[in-house]
């Protein structure tokens, strides 16, 4: 429409902001960047050679954007306006994207349902009072509702892929190090990776090619140029897809049926299906819940009420300042993970927990290396179920919610790329399957997902949004 001049860049930006306001009850945004976005859209002219030119985008509220409030959905960062902009945001802005808003998320990305945000729950656009998934729940809701065509997310254990599955979207977690983490507020530094959430694999490819590239400001950024996944998207080779033996019997009958339909679609397109084994995969959730809290307890020590963000009003001395600012500033899930993290890192427990988990992590990564000798990509469900009602999981037993990420966590531990792709609905609600590949196999993953989407129409379905007016 931009190319045919049916709409101008500023009309498109204003329409996106007006939708954001119309669907305010979704609660998917922490802040709308109205003035700056409109000003930017008036100054930009449409570039027909650039697929992201003048495209409205929403960024997860853990990417620093200069002078725009960035909170990680935590009280402890209330009012924080970063003096710099994250590399990934800059890369997308350089490609022509216009930042419309910052999206709601689980506090510091700790959660799988977007129920730990200081700013309240995000609704799933497909079903009110049900979770959009997490932690990039606001990002998924903002795309699924049609407010923006593209959003950034981050994925530490499934936080892009699981909300994508629950909201009928395509979400890509690239290889660790593909996208700069500079300016992205850290949760677990050896697991965190930014990525795109969009309707289709093609849109994810366009976004990925803009987001990637080496960044000298991030010491874990890979020394590689930008990806060129769009160029090779239409190349379809019939690959061998591995089905994980250990995941048999983990799904309800309805979810299993939806997954089997995806397998059949791939078979009909000429893909070979082969059972593979990942013997240590069952340890991925406990391994993650040692490593992620350990890294978070270290990363979150910087929030102390001294240099930025929230400081408790009720303080007498320096110790009060630290203790009360952190006690009042962090929510329960964050506190729980900091406590676990400091415990597993403490002298006397370090070898039994932290070192042990890092050893099991290597076994899990080696399992993937062996599996990729038998198959090109691995095909799994993305999450064990569809969306669920607010407060229905994890209030009695926190590990119940942790198991939401059963299928997604291992890719983060190994640092390998994976995508979630919409598949058959279950009881009228979206579900997704996941394609996992070896390091740097984003092109093959996106080609395969694109091939599936050329031969299915699940990704084209959108929610009615009537209940959010």
């Amino acid at each position, binding site marked *: 429409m931009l190319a045919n001049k049916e709409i101008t860049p500023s009309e498109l930006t204003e329409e996106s902001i007006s939708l954001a306001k119309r669907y305010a009850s979704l609660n998917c945004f922490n802040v709308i960047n109205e003035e700056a976005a409109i000003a930017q859209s008036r100054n930009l002219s449409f570039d027909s050679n650039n697929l992201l030119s003048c495209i409205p985008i929403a960024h997860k509220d853990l990417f620093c954007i200069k002078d725009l409030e960035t909170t990680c959905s935590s009280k402890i960062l209330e009012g924080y306006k970063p003096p710099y902009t994250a590399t990934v945001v800059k890369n997308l802005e350089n490609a022509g994207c216009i930042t419309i808003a910052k999206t709601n998320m689980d506090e510091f990305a700790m959660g799988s349902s977007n129920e730990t945000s200081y700013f309240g729950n995000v609704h799933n656009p497909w079903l009110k009072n049900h979770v959009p998934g997490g932690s990039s729940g606001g990002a998924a809701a903002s795309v699924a509702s049609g407010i923006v065509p593209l959003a950034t997310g981050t994925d530490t254990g499934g936080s892009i892929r699981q909300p994508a599955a629950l909201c009928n979207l395509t979400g890509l977690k690239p290889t660790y190090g593909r996208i700069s983490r500079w300016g992205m507020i850290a949760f677990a530094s050896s697991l965190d990776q930014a990525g795109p959430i969009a309707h289709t694999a093609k849109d994810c490819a366009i976004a990925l090619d803009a987001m990637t590239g080496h960044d000298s400001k991030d010491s874990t950024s890979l020394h590689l140029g930008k990806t060129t996944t769009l160029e090779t998207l239409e190349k379809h080779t019939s690959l061998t897809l591995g089905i994980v033996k250990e995941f048999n019997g983990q799904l309800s009958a309805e979810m299993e049926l939806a997954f089997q339909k995806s397998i059949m679609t791939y078979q009909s397109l000429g893909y070979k299906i082969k059972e593979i084994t990942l013997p240590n995969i069952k340890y991925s959730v406990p391994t993650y819940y040692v490593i992620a809290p350990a890294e978070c307890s270290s990363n979150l020590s910087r929030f102390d009420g001294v240099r930025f963000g929230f400081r408790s009003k009720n303080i007498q001395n320096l110790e009060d300042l630290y203790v009360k600012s952190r006690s009042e500033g962090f929510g329960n899930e964050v506190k729980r993970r900091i406590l*676990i993290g400091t415990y597993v890192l403490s002298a006397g427990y370090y070898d039994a927990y932290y070192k042990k*988990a890092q050893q*099991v992590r290597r*076994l899990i990564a080696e399992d993937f290396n062996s599996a990729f000798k038998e198959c090109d990509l691995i095909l799994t469900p993305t999450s064990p179920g569809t969306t669920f009602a607010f407060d229905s999981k994890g209030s009695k037993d926190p590990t119940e919610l942790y198991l939401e990420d059963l299928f997604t966590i291992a890719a983060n531990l190994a640092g390998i790329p994976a995508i979630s792709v919409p598949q058959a609905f279950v009881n009228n609600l979206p579900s997704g399957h996941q394609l996992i590949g070896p390091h740097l196999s984003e092109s093959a993953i996106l080609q395969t997902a694109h091939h599936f989407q050329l031969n299915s129409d699940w990704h084209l379905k959108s929610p009615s949004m009537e209940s959010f007016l």
Partner: protein
Amino acid sequence: MDQNSAQKIESDLDVILSMIDELQEVDTSKIEPMFSPIEQTAIVYDDVISSDNLKEDFLTQAPNSDNNFFKVPKVVE
């Protein structure tokens, strides 16, 4: 943390730690820990002076500051 929250967190931690204890059944006797998915050595930067000092910008974000310092309650009597 009040008494109720402390009790809730204590019971949550027990559940989480018993899940984590499953790792003890894995034989890792000859396995090197994998601390990062990228096992590259530290990057050496060129010895070039950069002028990215955003001191004033950062101080504007402080809950309390004075001249060039972050202000906190008095530590020494």
